[in-house]
C-alpha cells in the first residue's frame, strides 16, 4: 500500500515540483482502463457505503449542531443552527450523566471478565487437554452467534422472580433475588449476559494469537525449570501482547456501544440503573429530540475514538 508513496519520494528532486516520471507512474498506478475497471467494481459497495455510512456520519454531526426534532425528519434542511448548545445541554443533563456512568461501569466489569474467561478457555483448549477440543470451543462460541432478541427472551424467563434460576436457588435454601427488578441485581444480570455473549469472541481471538507462539519456546523454558505459571507470565502473556491489545480495544468499543442487552432485558431500568449511552440516545430519538439524540451519539463516537487511540498508545508492543 505504501509502495506508491515511497517510490514517488525517491524520484523527487529538491526544489522541483513533486511529479512522477511517466514510467514510474505506469508501473505503480496501472493503466486508465484498469482504473476504470476498479471503480466499476467498487461502485455498488461505494454507493451503499456512502448512502448508509458516509453521509449518515456527516449528517449526524450536522444534526447535533441544530435544534432538529421529529417534525423535521421529512424536511431535514429546515432547522436552526445552534452550535454547541445541544452538547452543553446534554452534558449538564442528569439522565445523560447517569447513562455515561452506567456505560463506564459496564465496560469496567464486562471487559476484564470476558477477556479473563476467554483467555482461560483459550489456554486450556490450546494445550491443556487432548480430546473434545472442538466441542468445548463450539459450546463457548454458540452464545456469540445467538440472536440477541431470542437470548433476551430466554434470560427474562430464566431470571424472572419465580423462574428456573430462582427455583434452583430456592430448593438449595439460597436467597431468591429479584434479578431484573432491583438495581444491583439488574446490573449484574446485564453484565452476565454481556459476558456470556462475548467470551467466545475473546476465546477465538486468543486461540489465534496462541497458535502463533512457537512450541519450542515452552520446551526450552520447561527444560530450564520454569513452572506453568512462570511460563504463562514470562512467555505466553508477553508474546500475546498484540492479541491482548486487539481484544481489549474490540471489547471496550463493543461495550461502550452496549444497547441490546439493557434495552431488551430491563428497558434500562429499574430507575435508569442499567441505561447505557446508546440506549439514552435511542430513547431521545423516540421522544422526538433528534438533535439531543445526535449530540449524544457524536459524544459516544468521540469517546470510542479517544479510548481506542489511548489503548493503542498504552498497550502497543514496546520496541
Amino acid at each position, binding site marked *: *500500500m505504501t509502495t506508491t508513496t515511497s517510490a514517488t519520494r525517491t524520484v523527487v528532486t529538491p526544489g522541483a515540483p513533486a511529479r512522477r516520471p511517466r514510467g514510474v507512474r505506469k508501473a505503480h*498506478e496501472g493503466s486508465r482502463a*484498469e*482504473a476504470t*475497471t*476498479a*471503480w466499476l*467494481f*467498487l461502485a*455498488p*459497495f461505494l454507493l*451503499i457505503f456512502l448512502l*448508509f455510512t*458516509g453521509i*449518515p*456520519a456527516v*449528517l449526524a454531526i450536522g*444534526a447535533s449542531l441544530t435544534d432538529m426534532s421529529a417534525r423535521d*425528519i421529512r424536511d*431535514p434542511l429546515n432547522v436552526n443552527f445552534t452550535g454547541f448548545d445541544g452538547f452543553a445541554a446534554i452534558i449538564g443533563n442528569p439522565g445523560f450523566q447517569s447513562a455515561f456512568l452506567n456505560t463506564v461501569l459496564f465496560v469496567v466489569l464486562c471487559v476484564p471478565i470476558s477477556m479473563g474467561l476467554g483467555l*482461560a478457555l483459550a489456554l*486450556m483448549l490450546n*494445550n491443556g*487437554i487432548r480430546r*473434545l477440543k472442538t466441542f468445548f470451543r463450539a459450546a463457548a*462460541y*454458540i*452464545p456469540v*452467534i*445467538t*440472536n*440477541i432478541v*431470542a437470548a433476551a*427472551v*430466554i*434470560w*427474562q424467563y*430464566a431470571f424472572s422472580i*419465580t*423462574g*428456573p434460576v430462582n427455583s434452583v436457588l*430456592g430448593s438449595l435454601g439460597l436467597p431468591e433475588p429479584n434479578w431484573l427488578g432491583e438495581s444491583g441485581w439488574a446490573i449484574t444480570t446485564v453484565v452476565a449476559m454481556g459476558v*456470556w455473549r462475548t467470551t467466545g*469472541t475473546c476465546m477465538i481471538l486468543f486461540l489465534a494469537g496462541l497458535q502463533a507462539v512457537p*512450541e519450542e519456546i515452552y*520446551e526450552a523454558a520447561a527444560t530450564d525449570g520454569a513452572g*506453568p505459571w512462570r511460563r504463562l507470565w514470562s512467555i505466553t502473556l508477553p508474546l500475546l501482547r498484540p*492479541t491482548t491489545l*486487539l481484544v481489549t480495544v*474490540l471489547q471496550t468499543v463493543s461495550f461502550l*456501544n452496549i444497547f*441490546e442487552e439493557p434495552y*431488551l432485558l430491563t428497558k434500562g431500568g429499574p430507575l435508569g440503573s442499567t441505561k447505557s*449511552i446508546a440506549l439514552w440516545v*435511542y430513547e431521545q*430519538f423516540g421522544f422526538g429530540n*433528534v438533535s439531543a439524540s*445526535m449530540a449524544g451519539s457524536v459524544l*459516544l463516537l468521540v469517546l470510542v*475514538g479517544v479510548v481506542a487511540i489511548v489503548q493503542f498508545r498504552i498497550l502497543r508492543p514496546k520496541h
Partner: protein
Amino acid sequence: MKTLSPTRQAFNYTALAVITVFMLLPFVWVFFGSFKTQGEFLANPGAWFPETFQIDNYIQLFRDRGFGDYMMNSFIVSSVAIAGNVVFSAMAGYALAKLRFRGKNVVFPLVIASMIVPYVALFVPQFVIVVQMGLVDSLIAIILPVLTLPLCVFIMRQFAHGVPYELMEAARLDGAGEARIFFRVFLPLTGPGLATVAILSFLTSWNNFLWPLVVAQSQDTYTAPVGLSVASQASNSISFGLLLAGAMVVLLPILILFLFLQKYFIQGVAATGLK
C-alpha cells in the same frame, strides 16, 4: 508436544465442563420451556421441564401470531443480503487488492475507520435518508444497509491478496478481459472467502435488530426478531411459552447452519480480529 500431567488435565476438563454448562444453560431453558403449556407456567413457573411435550405454543405462534410471515420476511432479507454481500464484496475486494488505481489509499482507510462508528450514531440519519427515498416500512429499506458490509469487503480483500498475480497476468496475455479474469481466475480461487462472507452476512442480517425495529412499522414488514421483541414488550398478555417457542424458531436456522459450517463462522470472527 509436551506431556500433560493427569491432574492438570483433570482440572482443565472440569473447568471446561463447568463453563460449558453455563454457556449452554439458556439453550436448555428455551428448548424445554417452549413445550410448557400456559397452565404449567401459572402453576409452576420455575419448573425446568414440561410435564409432557405439547406443541401448542408452536401452533399458536404460527397460526395466531403471524410468525410464518415474519420468518418469511427474515428469510427474504437474509437471502438478498447474502447474495449482495457475496457478489459486491468479491468485486470490491478484487479491486482493492488486485487493481492499481488512484484513490485506493483513500477508500480503504475510510472503510476501516467507518467500522468503529457507533451504530446509534447512524440509524437516525439512515432513517432520514430512507424517509426521503420514500422507502419507510419496506423490506428494501431493511435490506439496503446490510447489502454490502464493510467487514465483508475487508475479508474479501484479505482473501484476494492470496491470489497470485501471475495467474491473472497469464490470462491477460491470453487476451482475457477484466470481467473474464474476475469470473474465471479470481472467483474460483476465493471459495473459502466467499463462504465466510456468506455466513457473516447471514448472521448480520438475520440478527439485525435495531434498524428493522426502527424502519419496520407494520406487521407486514416485521422480521422475526422484531416480531419477537414486539411480542415480548406485551408480555403481560402473552405467555412465556409462546415467547420461548418464538425464540426457538428464531434460533434454529442459526444453530443448524453452525452445526454444519462451524469453520466458516469461526473464520469470520478471526477475520474481525485482523482489523
